[in-house]
């Protein structure tokens, strides 16, 4: 038995994969973001033509590679899980770890995901099982027709089961569901597992698809979504005065986190380091951050402290920036409180202006974007920024990305239910 006394190990990212509304790979996604291209359009996955909001960030033309999955795993795949598997395949290949647990110590290889289990066939199922059966006997018949894998297909841990089964991961496995903060926390807790010596490699990220009638309806009812159906490409306009809600999006985003020494020994390419993670909860309203940004501020402060860095070290903030009135103002207040005088000097952008809000996968895709900003020395823009809001008075990198040396990035995620996560991504210097 190994004693895990080596606390404080460094954690690097050695593989990344993404399937998003603006690209089917990490590099395609990044090219789109650098060019300010938007992935939001009229919904096509189902007929939303009479819905109050009928736009979203779909992964158009997504072809799932049906390479045979072992052990009937294919039965457990809904669209969200397919997006997750596709992103994970890219990330594992990118890290040179296609062999997974056969290539490294399987007991020190884990999976940490931010995702949810949802019924993607809720309406037809409800109709079949509840609405149509006229008699008890018909109801019983309908129940007997339920497939044996349904409990797993709709379980939040189904994707972790698939990924750990695909690559033989026998270390820590976690699924975290804290709405929009899920995959930020999944990365943060995976980072802690490696740092504490409980694992050497963690496949971590998120997957999401809310493109289902009842989920879109539910977000409409909350009044959370933009209603700019006639101008989908400019509907998501974080920090702009005229913003009117977020735009739902789907996708998968996965990273391979690795102990730095482990990565070095096997000669892995290193994108950058996860230098810190901060986590807080608002204990405020279920859908809102407080106007003074208290909870988000606590997460940002904790992340910087965890990384032993100060405001002067921050080169770029990839904002949560959902394009709702209250989030963007609250986040701006939190950034000012955290960075003090430096707040106005640091570029802050919301790539949700282009990808839409990938909810459970948002934290993971934005961590990837932050690492690419470091790699290429490029800060992606906030597009659709036209009318300044006096409550949002920072440098939001309006409409045009910038070349700039980026060593340290804060990536923010805040969610329904009040959980906040901030990751510190940093250029890796051995």
């Amino acid at each position, binding site marked *: *038995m190994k*004693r895990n006394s080596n606390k404080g190990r460094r954690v690097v990212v050695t593989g990344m994969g993404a399937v998003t509304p603006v690209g089917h790979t990490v590099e395609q996604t990044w090219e789109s973001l650098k060019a300010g291209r938007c992935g939001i359009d009229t919904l096509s996955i189902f*007929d939303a033509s*009479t819905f109050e909001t009928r736009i979203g960030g779909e992964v158009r033309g997504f072809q799932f590679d049906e390479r045979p*999955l072992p*052990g009937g*795993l294919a039965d457990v795949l809904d669209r969200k899980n397919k997006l997750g598997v596709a992103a994970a395949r890219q990330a594992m290949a990118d890290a040179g770890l296609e062999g997974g647990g056969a290539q490294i110590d399987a007991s020190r*290889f*884990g999976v940490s995901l931010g995702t949810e*289990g949802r*019924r993607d066939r*809720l*309406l*037809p199922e409800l*109709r079949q099982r*509840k*609405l*149509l059966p006229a008699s*008890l006997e018909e109801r*019983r018949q309908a*129940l007997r027709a*339920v497939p*044996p894998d*349904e409990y*797993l297909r709709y*379980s*939040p*841990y189904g994707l*972790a*089961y*698939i990924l*750990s*089964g695909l*690559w*033989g991961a*026998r*270390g820590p*496995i976690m*699924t*975290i*569901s*804290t*709405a929009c903060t899920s995959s930020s*926390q999944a990365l943060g807790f995976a980072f802690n597992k490696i740092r*504490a010596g409980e694992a050497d490699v963690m496949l971590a990220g998120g997957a999401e698809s809310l493109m289902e009638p009842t989920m879109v*309806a*539910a977000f*409409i*009812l909350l009044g959370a979504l933009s209603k700019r159906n006639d101008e989908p490409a400019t509907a998501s306009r974080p920090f702009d005065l005229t913003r009117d809600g977020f735009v739902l999006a789907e996708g998968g985003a996965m990273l391979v986190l690795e102990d730095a020494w482990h990565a070095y020994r096997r000669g892995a390419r290193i994108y950058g380091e996860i230098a810190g993670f901060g*986590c*807080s*909860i*608002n*204990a405020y309203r*279920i859908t809102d951050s407080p106007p003074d940004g*208290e*909870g988000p501020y606590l997460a940002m402060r904790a992340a910087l402290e965890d990384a032993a860095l100060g405001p002067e070290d921050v080169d770029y903030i990839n904002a949560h920036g959902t394009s709702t009135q209250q989030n963007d103002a609250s986040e701006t207040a939190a950034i000012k409180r955290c960075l003090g005088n430096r707040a106005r000097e640091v570029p802050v952008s919301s790539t949700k202006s282009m990808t839409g809000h990938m909810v459970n996968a948002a934290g993971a895709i934005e961590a990837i974007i932050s690492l690419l900003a470091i790699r290429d020395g490029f800060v992606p823009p906030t597009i659709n920024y036209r009318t300044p809001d006096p409550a949002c008075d920072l440098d939001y990198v309006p409409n045009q990305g910038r070349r700039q040396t980026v060593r340290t990035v804060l990536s923010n995620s805040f969610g329904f*239910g*009040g*959980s906040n996560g901030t990751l510190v991504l940093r250029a890796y210097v051995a």
Partner: protein
Amino acid sequence: MSREGERRVVITGVGVVSPLGCSAEELWAALAAGRSGLGTEAHLDLTPFRTKVCGAVRDFNARRFIADPKSLKLMTRPVRLGVAAAELAIRDAGIEAGALDPYRIATFVGSPGHAGDRDELLPALAAAARDRNGHLDLKAFGAEGIATINPLWLLKSLANIVLYFVSLKLGAQGTNANFCMSGAGGTMAIGEAFRAIRGGAADLAVAGGYESLLEEERLESFEPSGLLYLGDGPAAAASRPFDRDRGGFVAAEGAAFLVLEERDAARRRQARIYGEIQGYGMANPGVAERPSETAAAFLGGMEACLNDARRDPWELDAIYAYGLATAHADRAEAEAIKQLLTARAAYVPVTAVKSATGNLLAGSGPLETVAALGTIGGSIGGVPAILNCEHPDPELGLDYVRGATRAIAARRVLVNSASLAGTTASLLLEAAN
């Protein structure tokens, strides 16, 4: 045997809402007496289902625990069970909101994940499905249906809604997570809370789990799985972990939460200490098969936990097994315990609380942790028996506690949990002096 200078973590509050009663004392008394909590009645009408035996929480009055009517409107029954158990744990610990730096209070929950009240969608669905044989008309759903849905439906179904309500209780603003890992999730919540306090990220944590299989949607998708007990024998005899005639787990509902505190702080405020958490570990089968439980994953979780605590297997006084009562899972777990204990396997008593409660999934790990505190703290008067373990599977030769509570002074107890995908999580508890 903690590391020198390391912060230690004790449990100062427990809250239980279970088929064996709505307090830790009732749970301990029932386990001590070998009483089953299983029956044939639930809040849900079981008539259309094959499930005849269940572990229901009886006489649950949410208003005893949740005063605000607006909050109640946002909570489905399983959520109410969870929030009530957290409320009981916080009351039990005697902690007041405002007594601590909010950022130093952690909150961790194991939950079933996204789960709304599906029936609230029925009027909208009816609008979209007027033609009995026709297809769903999404145009009608959008135009007329959506407006009939409770606008709070999404919030009611939020995966992390119990985490939200628990954070409000003490105004907690510290580290947090909501683990959706089936039967391992609640144990992970306790384990991560333990880590947060030990590592210095928090001074106090509220952690636990809740889940219910006694909801229409859950029974619908679990009955075909082959994992549930679907027999119609006497309720008290339905759940038979490690018995030759075991036939799956009994669907149940409930919740348990704990308050964890840094030991010196707990002592300073003269809190009652139920026991200490010394270790936490997890592992995973990493197989693509179903059923997925493996001896290697159970062994890996137990070893990681003992490693974390710097204890050796021979120091264990008892094991609270996961004891799912399926043929496959019990064999894997028993095999792992044998491998862990080697020659001592014949002398370490093993019990399985699910024999009396059924499976509360994310609620079971925390419930069984509270049960184990009843063993090390003396409230149960020993290690409770596994009910119905009349003919222990001969291949799985362990020292199963059978018949009646075994009156031994067990000071150090391992608690095992797992998800239905075989991910394991184990905790090591030790008596407080």
